[in-house]
């Protein structure tokens, strides 16, 4: 029983803990559809990014392509 709890604690610490180690990006919706727009309008959308890690997240570059 004690061994079991110890194992679960260890497993939680290593597996779940490791998940958020370092910089970790999470984006809410990677695709955005404006649906119908008139020609000539300028479309602008802001994507929210979250750092769910424990180290600073760097956005190195954003390139259209």
């Amino acid at each position: 029983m004690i061994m079991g709890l110890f194992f679960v604690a260890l497993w939680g610490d290593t597996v779940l803990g490791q998940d958020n180690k370092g910089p970790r990006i999470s984006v809410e919706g990677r695709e955005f559809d404006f649906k119908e727009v008139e020609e000539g309008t300028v479309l602008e959308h802001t994507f929210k990014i979250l750092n769910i890690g424990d180290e600073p997240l760097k956005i190195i570059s954003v390139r259209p392509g």
Partner: protein
Amino acid sequence: MANFDPAVPPGGEGKITLKIKTKGYQGNLRKSARIKTNDPEKRNIILVIKATVKVPIYVSSKYVHLYGKGDKGAHKTIKILAELDKPLNLSVTDFTLKNKLKYAIETVQKEKEYRVRFTSISGVKENFRGILKLKTNYPEKPEISIVINGRFKPAKIPSRPPSSGIKKETPVRGANAVKRLFTFLPVTSVSTGKKGLKSPRQWKFVLS
């Protein structure tokens, strides 16, 4: 165009803003941006913006390419469609290829859909580039320009120059060229640090 926060602290929130101009587009528009991050598991992320760009007048193509092959004529058709719920009328204001190309505007659906048909003129053996300008009764889109590219000049086949007696070596392309890059040589001894590995079946890979 893009604006973004270069760094996001742990537990924090950042923004990436993408901006797209829709001028000159019609129909489905899809633009993506590649985001490079220092997240070891997500070094690249693709963000996508989609839209359906509505135009007052749909033109199937603003560029026409006509290629002549031998004596065969060439023709291309463009569709022009009114997307607004009101009658559309067209009239030609300019055509710069009068003696090189013929065009005809056909009505498919009265005041709604038209077809512009470009046909080559036999005997014209040159390359050309020109424009057809149409005036419309839509204040939202008063003019339609169609750029035309024609290639009717027969391609010159260069005659073989007389042999000067000295053969110039031309680089070999294809499989042979790859073969020449390296050769296999038999290895008489292998320096693995272990004894007893001498074998006549071992080969050395030498890049030449």
